Every structure is written in structure tokens, then in C-alpha cells.
């Protein structure tokens, strides 16, 4: 039987992390096993094939496709310079020649005497992969990339937008339920990862982008604000590629939701430390969640990496409610009755009983909680 509850997000002051930093295509690895790297260091690079530029040579020459081979000045595979002669008709008595020149630097990909098409390929595009986290190169995958490990304080977010970035953590709030305002954004926030509390209001985000804030860490985010920021409604949760000028990591979900206490105190504890974050979220197949990674001191012996183990829901487990009512509230499991039970919506589900932080005793569908590791 499939498990009925969500695995929960990791929030911990110390974890051994392992990050694969792999090129999209084979290329060159620039570091070696045992090297210490900084998040901003380039660890591997490659050249992606350039764009293909198709154009109809026969038309340009004013001839039929089957005749173009008579006029070619280049062949498949030739390297090209912009403006180089590709083909030229013989003209009349040496006059009225039609010449076609390359619109780009690159290479001749193919020439077709059936369609008259010529395909050129632009020069290759260099791609760099950065280390993303401060750490130790523990393995090199030849021509593909590296494995970097470190010890970190670590917070998994639930949803984010924007790519990888790093900076110093800066708290704009004093307690997990506070919400920072745009007035608090000033020059001192530049290049920082700011923590804004239970929400990151739209005007704050706008001002943060203007001020050059690297990243925003927030409990909740309002969907309408998000739509305004992006200019479109997110349909399917595959994010991380947005370019709004900063990266946003929401640790709790949509709406005004207090930061989990543990998340707040970790961020507070590491205020001023360098952290790496990204907003990449993918809910389907190959689940990916945003991350906040705060590297801490370690020695090579500390790097005893363990596969994340499946958390188990049992009496005493700390849980977070992830659906109304009591959305976002933390509690402890007090009983796990086996039999299917009707909840208010008349849905028959497996339930658990829990005592919430507020002291309230509740019955919840198991599907509506996630486990928080203590």
C-alpha cells in the first residue's frame, strides 16, 4: 500500500549534503577530487552546439534545388566566417552573377539538392557549471561533472521561483509571524538573502529587485502577487527558470503563513552567514524542492553521506498540517487509529489524532499532514 502521508520537508542544523554538478553535454571538468571549492567557482565547462540557421539557397540563387551543387563554394562540414561566399551562379558571360554569403560565423551543417535548403550552424556556445555550494570535490565524473559534498545547515522550501544564487542571510523580522515591509529594504540589503517572515508582499519584492537583493526567503507568498510579478499564472509547478531579478524561496506555501519556528530559529542563528539558495520546484516525477543551504565548518571525515531515509509516521511524531483547517499549524501525533473514518467532507480516509501547538486536539486525514524531523 502506498503511504498515506507526505514525507515532509527537511529542516536541520547539520546535514551532510551531496550535490551532483553535471554538464548538459559532455565537456571538461576543471577541478579534481579533493579540491575545496567555493559556491561561485566554475567546476566544469562545455560547448553547446550552436543554433541552426536554415535558409533556402536555391531561392537566393534564383535556381532550382537540383542545380545548386553546380554553384557551391563550400561543402558540408566547412568552417565559415561571416560574409564568406557560400555559392555563386556563373552569370551571363561572367556578368550578372548572384552571390550568396554566410550571414554568420559557424559551420555548414547540410546542403540539400532536393529542397534547396542549406543549414548553417552558429558557433558553439560555452556553458559553465558553478559549484553552487562551498564544499569538497569528492568525486569526478569524467567529462561530465563533479560531486561536491559539504556539511550544512539545511532548509527545504516548498515552492520557489528563480535560479541558483548565493549571499549572506539577513533577517528583516524578529519573530516567525512578522511580515517585513518594503520600507525595510535599503542599500544594506544589496546582494543579501533577506528573510521576510510570514509573507513577502508584492511591493517589498519589487523594491528588493530594484535594490539588487539576491534572494528572498519567506514563509508564504500570495498567488495574486506571484501572478503580478511573473505576468502569468503558473499552471504546472515546474519552476526555477524565471528571471525576475531575484530568487524567492517559500518555506510554507501560498498565503500568509508563519515561518515554522525551527526554520526561523535556524535562519536567525545563521544570520550573516553565506548561504546558497535556488527556487527550482518540480512536483511531478523526480520531485525537486527549493533549498536553502548554509555551509558550516567540516573536516573530510565528517562527510559520512547517508541516503535520506524514509520518515515514519508514529505516535509522538511532530507534524505540520498542510491543508485547512489549521493549515500550517504544528502538532504531535497522539493516536493512529486503523479504521477508515469519515471527515467533515464525508470523505472516508485514514486519519490520525493530534495535539496542536495551540493545545487543540484534532482529527486529521493522514494525507493532510507532513512529518517534521526533530
Amino acid at each position, binding site marked *: *500500500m*502506498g503511504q498515506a502521508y*507526505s514525507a515532509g520537508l527537511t529542516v536541520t542544523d547539520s546535514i551532510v549534503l551531496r550535490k551532483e554538478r553535471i554538464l548538459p553535454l559532455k565537456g571538461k571538468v576543471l577541478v579534481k577530487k579533493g579540491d575545496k571549492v567555493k559556491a561561485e567557482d566554475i567546476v566544469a565547462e562545455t560547448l553547446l552546439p550552436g*543554433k*541552426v*540557421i*536554415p535558409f533556402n539557397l536555391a531561392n537566393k540563387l534564383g535556381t532550382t534545388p537540383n542545380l545548386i551543387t553546380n554553384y557551391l563554394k563550400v561543402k558540408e562540414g566547412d568552417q565559415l566566417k561571416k560574409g564568406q561566399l557560400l555559392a555563386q551562379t556563373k552569370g551571363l558571360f561572367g556578368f550578372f552573377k548572384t552571390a550568396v554569403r554566410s550571414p554568420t560565423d559557424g559551420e555548414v*551543417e*547540410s546542403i*540539400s539538392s*532536393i*529542397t534547396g*535548403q542549406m*543549414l548553417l550552424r552558429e558557433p558553439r556556445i560555452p556553458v559553465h557549471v558553478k559549484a553552487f555550494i562551498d564544499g569538497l570535490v569528492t568525486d569526478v565524473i569524467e567529462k561530465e561533472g563533479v560531486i561536491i559534498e559539504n556539511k550544512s545547515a539545511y532548509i527545504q522550501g*516548498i*515552492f520557489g521561483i528563480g535560479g541558483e544564487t548565493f549571499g549572506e542571510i539577513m533577517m528583516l523580522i524578529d519573530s516567525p509571524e512578522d511580515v517585513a515591509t518594503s520600507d525595510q529594504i535599503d542599500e544594506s540589503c544589496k546582494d543579501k538573502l533577506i528573510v521576510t517572515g510570514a509573507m513577502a508582499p508584492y511591493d517589498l519584492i519589487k523594491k528588493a529587485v530594484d535594490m539588487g537583493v539576491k534572494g528572498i526567503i519567506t514563509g508564504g507568498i*500570495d*498567488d*495574486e502577487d*506571484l501572478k503580478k510579478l511573473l505576468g*502569468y*499564472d*503558473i*499552471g*504546472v*509547478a515546474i519552476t526555477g527558470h524565471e528571471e525576475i531579478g531575484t530568487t524567492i524561496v517559500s518555506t510554507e*506555501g*501560498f*498565503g500568509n503563513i508563519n515561518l515554522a519556528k525551527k526554520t526561523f530559529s535556524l535562519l536567525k542563528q545563521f544570520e550573516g552567514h553565506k548561504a546558497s539558495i535556488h527556487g527550482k*520546484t518540480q*512536483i*511531478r*516525477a523526480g520531485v525537486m524542492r527549493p533549498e536553502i543551504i548554509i555551509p558550516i565548518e567540516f573536516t573530510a571525515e565528517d562527510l559520512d553521506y547517508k541516503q535520506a531515509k524514509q520518515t515514519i509516521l508514529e505516535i509522538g511524531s511532530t507534524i505540520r498540517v*498542510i*491543508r*485547512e*483547517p489549521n*493549515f500550517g499549524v504544528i502538532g504531535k501525533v497522539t493516536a493512529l487509529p486503523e479504521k477508515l473514518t*469519515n*471527515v*467533515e*467532507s*464525508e*470523505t*472516508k*480516509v485514514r486519519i490520525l489524532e493530534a495535539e496542536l501547538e495551540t493545545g487543540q486536539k484534532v482529527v*486529521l*486525514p493522514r*494525507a*493532510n499532514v*507532513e512529518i517534521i524531523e526533530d
Partner: protein
Amino acid sequence: MGNEQLKKIIATDCGSTTTKAILIEYIDGEYRQTIRGEAPTTVEAPLNDVTAGVINAVTELEELARLKYNDPNIKFIKDDQIHLSKPAEQKDIGVDAYVSTSSAGGGLQMMVTGVVAKMTGESAERAALGAGAIVMDLIASNDKRPNYVKIERIRNLRPDMILLAGGVDGGTTKHIAELAELISAADPKPRLGSSYKLPVIYAGNKKARDLIKDTLSKNTDLIITDNLRPNLESENLGPARDKIHELFMEHVMAQAPGYNKLMGWTKGPIDSELKNIPIMPTPAAVGNIMQTIARQQGIEVVGVDIGGATTDIFSVFTEEHVFNRTVSANLGLSYSISNVLASAGLENILRWVPFDINHSDLRNMIKNKMIRPTTIPQLLKELVLEQAIAKEALRLAFVQHKEFAVSLKGAQKKREIADAFSQSLSGETIVNMLTLDLLVGSGGVLSHAPRRNQSAMMLVDAFLPEGITRLAVDSIFMMPQLGVLAEVSEKAATEVFEKDCLIYLGTCVAPVGKYKEGKTALTAKIELPDGEVFSEEIPFGEIRLIPLDVGKTAKAELKPGRGLDIGEGKSQTVQTELHGGVVGIILDTRGRQPFVLPSEDEARVANLKKWMNELDVYPKEILE
């Protein structure tokens, strides 16, 4: 088929998350589905072997069978695989056939091409969808993208295979050659594994075959088959569809972990000989059972499967039993729920909600469901909202289906030249709700709604059936397994479909046409089996529910209001038998073509409450 030697059959469906196994037994002269088991699918780490999940699910079947028959000797698994019994063996050991479908690993993902998007392109899309694929993109010579964009797109998609179609036989070869050149320039790589070349099926203009070979045989695994659009007036989708299935087995399945082993297990007696039964893509199997049922019973069917990420709609219409399938890739109720909001708009969702809700809260609720897709509505209000969203997802998916299911369909169907050029979205859909006989819903929100009445209302509101239509849900989504089972025994598949697969909700009667509020739209006289007679002149804008149990029928005389139609023509009275179900007979005079909800909130909410109360859809307290 004469497969009386089939006494026990196991069928599995290996989905992306769950592997579901059912046991079908021949008991007292009929086939019944007796036991089911399930286990998580194991195509990912750490197991990386689909057969582990199959064995787990079948082990559950075995254990449950032992309990049910109080027989500890029952054994389906031997030497770590599903055991196919030999004639000499005792009856407890093994089964007579094992069949399976699969959608694990994201199913079959294809890219298709055509010269003209609305002609050969549409035919290619139909062939791929009918074979159970997800069509990632249709590249056509006449789509508006510049060639370099098309090349980038082909390169980035990484499909499992490409169906290269275009041109009628004997026509110009230039465009199809150009499409082949684009594919060659993109040098696409298959999605799974880089150890093999990307399969490309060529099903276009016969005359261009040599050109295509020259362009593509070096870099791709090129397979040539008959043109799927040999001329403008006919389609010939069969050969391309068969090739897709062959390649699905050879390439896609063979790349998925453990499938080579599983392919060796799926066997059954065909013509008294134990033969391999190919694993089918799940949607292809669903199409198979729907066509079988439609053909055998001579009915028109629409089936829908609404999932977390996608909604599939299948239909069989016209006397030729033309089959169509569409996949609405981003309409679903968890992963894609936010896209339903984006596509339908907030107003369309809210029109089904009989209470006030803060718009911002609703938006955030939908997004929270997207990022935590496995949660379920605990509060009644949230259930009502999710079902409102479901109605919109179903409605939009059906709009797409109707636009796609246009008149040129199926192998060898002839049509006039004049029609060929208007094959477009111009309302030539073959989906005719007035002649539709059976509407089947499946997927969590429909199959597991707390009240079956909710499933019935979702189907009626989203699909707006016209005239007389039976409603059903597939309780445990058994259609895939039955679809592949039909390959071994049609009899077993259809008997189980009738008796165990469908839960009949009842019958919906809906006069077509617009009327004035309050004027009699339907005069119904229904004689129930217990002798009671329901008789009413029902005004326009109402719903009535008359309970009638599953398996029961009632004699009915249905007289539509003047100008309204319930299937026999305008103003024509219909004498018929109505079938019951767990909900009963629904008389719906809210109007069709158009169906309009009041625009003022107060009137709309009052109407919704009235209808929901009448259908007993939600507890009274939320409708007060």
C-alpha cells in the same frame, strides 16, 4: 473466441505510481473479477525493476485469494514469476493467462509531423493518440514557426519516437523532404537512454520514401510504413498505429527497468497455444475495451479519466464506431490544478459554487493543492470547491475532445473532396451528445467522491448530456486491464466490464433547447418496478431525482415541451425504458444548447442550491 480453457486470468496495470492487479475467474458459467491487489510501482531507485511491483501486487492477490477461498494452497507465483499453469497441474496452482498494460515512466511520448497541420498533421496526431501516446508537439510545414525554432524544438523535446507523416501518395515531395531535413538537423536523442537511435516512423507520401531514407537512415532508426493519409479523402491509421505499438515494446518498454523480464511473462492461450501477449500502453488498452463494448452493444460511448496531471477522453461515435482519444496534458486536479484555474478563469470555477468565497483565498488554496498534491479536502467547502474545479477541468477537456473528433476519422473512411478542405474546428465534430448512449467517468474525483450523486452531478454539469444518457463510473479503473484482456478473450473482458467494472449511476434525461423559466419543459410519466408511478409536468430550469436501483428499469413516457428534443426530434414524445443505478433517474430541464446559469449571483446561488438539494449532492447545512 472459444477460450473456455481460461479459468483464471491475472491482469496488471503498471502505472507511474501504483501497480494494480486484478484476478478474473470463470465461475458458474461467467467471468467475474474477484480479487484485486496493488503495490507501489518499482521502476525507480532503489529497485529499478518493474517486475518487483508486479510480484508484490500479485502476492497480495494470492494472499487475498487464499483468505477468500480458505485454501492455503493457492499459488500464482512460482520461481519468482507469475506462473502459467500447465494442463496437468492441480487447479490451485498458477493462472491460465497473464496480461499487462503500462504507463510507467511517463507513458509513451511522441512528436508528430505533417505537411498541413489541419490535414496530414491532424491525421498523424490521431494515429499517435489512438496508439496511446502523449503528443508533445505537432510540427507542420505550414505552422507559423520559423524553421530554426522548429529545429530547436525537436532537439529539446526528446520524444520516445517521431511519427513523420505528410503528403498524400504521389503528391509533391518537397515539403516532406524538408521536414525530414529539419529532423536530421536537430539530431534528436531519445528520452530514455542514449544507447539506441531515435525511432522515426515514416508514414507519409510513398513517393518520398527514398528521399527520407537518404536523409534519416544514418542518424535515426527509420521504419517505413503505409501512408496514413494516402489521399485527401481517406485515412489509413492502422499500419502506423501498429508500428507505434511495436516500437513501444521494442524501444521504450525495453529501456524501462525490468520490462524485458515482464515482456517474457505476459502470455495467454491463443488458438490453443500459449503465446506472448504484448504489453499495451494503458490508454491504448482503454481505447480497446471501449471500442469492443461499443461494437458489441451497438452503442455510442464517451469515457473520461481525470487524473492529477492529465485528463484523457475517449469516445466511440457513429455507426462505424469511430474511435477518438484526446489527452489534455495540463488539466488535472493536483499537479495541474492551477492550470485549470489559468485556463478556465476564476469566474467559471466560481459559477458552480453555492456560497461566497474570497477570491484570493481560493487562488491560494488551489496553489497549495498544486504544491501538496496528495492532500484531500477535509472541509466540506473545500470538497465543493474541488468538485467545481473538476467540472471545469472536465468541461475544458471535452471541448478539446470535440474539436479534435471531427468527421474524417478511422481507417478507410471515405469522404467527399469538398469536405476535405473544411476539416477544421468548424463544428464538424462527430461527438453528438443527443445520440450518446453511455458516459463513463473515472479518476479519483469521480470514482471516489464521497457521494455517488456528486459524481453524477459532475458528469452532468461538465458534459451536459442531451436526450437520454446512461451514466456510470469505473469504480477502480479496471478498463486498462480489460482492454488488454480483450486481446486474449473478448468474452471475458466484456462480461467483467458489464458486471464488475462499471458502477451504473443511473440515467439522465435532458431536453435540448431553450425555454422560458417556469414553462413546462418535460412531461414525464415513469412507471417504477414496484408499481409506483412518477408523473409530473416539470418546468424549465429544474432537476428531479427519481431513485431506481441498479439493474432495474422503468417504463417511461417522456414528452418534451414544444420545440424541445429528447432524441426523437423536436416536440416528439419518447416511449422508452430507463435504466436505474446507485443514484437513479435524473430529469434535467435546465436547458441544453444553451445551458445557461443566471448571471446575477443571487439567482445563480439560489438555483445551484435548489438543484444540489434535489440531487442530494451535499449535506443540507451547506445548502441552506
